[in-house]
């Protein structure tokens, strides 16, 4: 064993990581090499001095340091707790946001549409007086008729559905409506109407 190898083994020995047979080899080397013996001795004494310094007393920190630490901690607010919940449940948060946005936009649509709106074929044949939409006697509307924010007065025929949103309807005895008659005046049923029409629109287009 040369001295370089022995030095490496010395350190491993000090780290308690030397196999017993290698310890034996190292000791054999010490027996024939006074320089390495001296070196090991020095290393061991260095280590003792290092461990010795640990026992040396250090004046403890001033008490106010602990108090300072506690005082310097940022306050965790309620909002942060809330935020953490949001972070932990991203899917629910996104779903809730989606529903909220849908609901708000639907509501605003509902509140905005205050003007008379008539939808259907042959509109020029209808009589409109103020917010009154009249289907004259003898006239046939060839399809669905929708009246929003107005009164529908039907004397003639409607070959389809009649839908009145936020308004009233007046069906004369001569009126004939082949489809369904629907009256919508609540936000929720209006929403339902829009949603079902959205889907049927998708289905038929």
């Amino acid at each position, binding site marked *: 064993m040369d001295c370089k190898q022995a030095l490496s083994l010395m*350190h491993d020995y*000090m780290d308690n990581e030397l196999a017993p047979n290698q310890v034996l080899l190292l000791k054999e080397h010490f027996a024939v090499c006074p320089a390495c013996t001296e070196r090991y001795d020095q*290393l061991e004494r260095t280590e003792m001095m290092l*461990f010795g*310094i640990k026992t040396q007393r*250090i004046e403890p920190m001033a008490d106010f340091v*602990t108090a300072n*630490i506690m005082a310097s*901690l*940022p306050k965790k607010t309620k909002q942060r707790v809330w935020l953490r919940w949001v972070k932990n449940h991203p899917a629910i948060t996104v779903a809730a946001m989606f529903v909220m946005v849908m609901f708000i936009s639907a509501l605003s649509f509902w509140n905005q549409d205050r003007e008379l709106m008539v939808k259907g074929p042959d509109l020029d044949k209808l009589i409109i007086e103020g917010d009154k939409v009249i289907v004259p006697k003898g006239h046939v509307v060839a399809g669905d008729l929708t009246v929003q924010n107005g009164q529908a007065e039907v004397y003639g025929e409607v070959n389809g559905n009649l839908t009145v949103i936020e308004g009233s309807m007046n069906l004369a005895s001569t009126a004939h409506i082949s489809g369904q008659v629907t009256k919508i005046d609540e936000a929720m049923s209006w929403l339902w109407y829009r949603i079902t029409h959205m889907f049927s629109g998708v289905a038929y287009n």
Partner: protein
Amino acid sequence: MLARKGDQRAFAELVELYKDKIFHLAYRMLNNRHEAEDVVQDTFLRVYKNLERYDENQKFSTWIYRIGTNLCIDRLRKRKPTYSLDAEMNDQEGIDGYAMIPSEDRTPETEYMLSETQQMIRQAIDSLPAKYKTVMVLRYMQELSLQEISDVLDMPVTTIKTRVHRGREFLRKKLERKL
């Protein structure tokens, strides 16, 4: 872990449990009381802010030692440029130990308490480059095992071993005439 839920009292207990360990570590690393106290404060502030990121599979002591050690290394880096161990080795022993002790610690009391030998050791440790100093302080002053040091510094055990070996050799040379 209670402290994680923002329980201030639980956190205060953590502070009580680890403040001295971190203070000793920082004091040995920086050789300056005031800076060491700052490090202790910064360490706990960081622990508090990052409690949510603490991995429970890890020992808490490892984690807090890592934060403290990194803060010390940052300060050492800011203080002066690091030079290689070889350059240090060739350094002449011209500087006397007295000059190496920070002036604020040079009170008559400490001079009396610190034997010449102890002063020399402190000076020798202080002159180690940061990466060796860290390992030596953790190994001898905190009595961590090589494996624990490797966990704290997030480095392979073989690297830690090499640094301990080189650190020991460096200190042996520095302290040669005292041995």
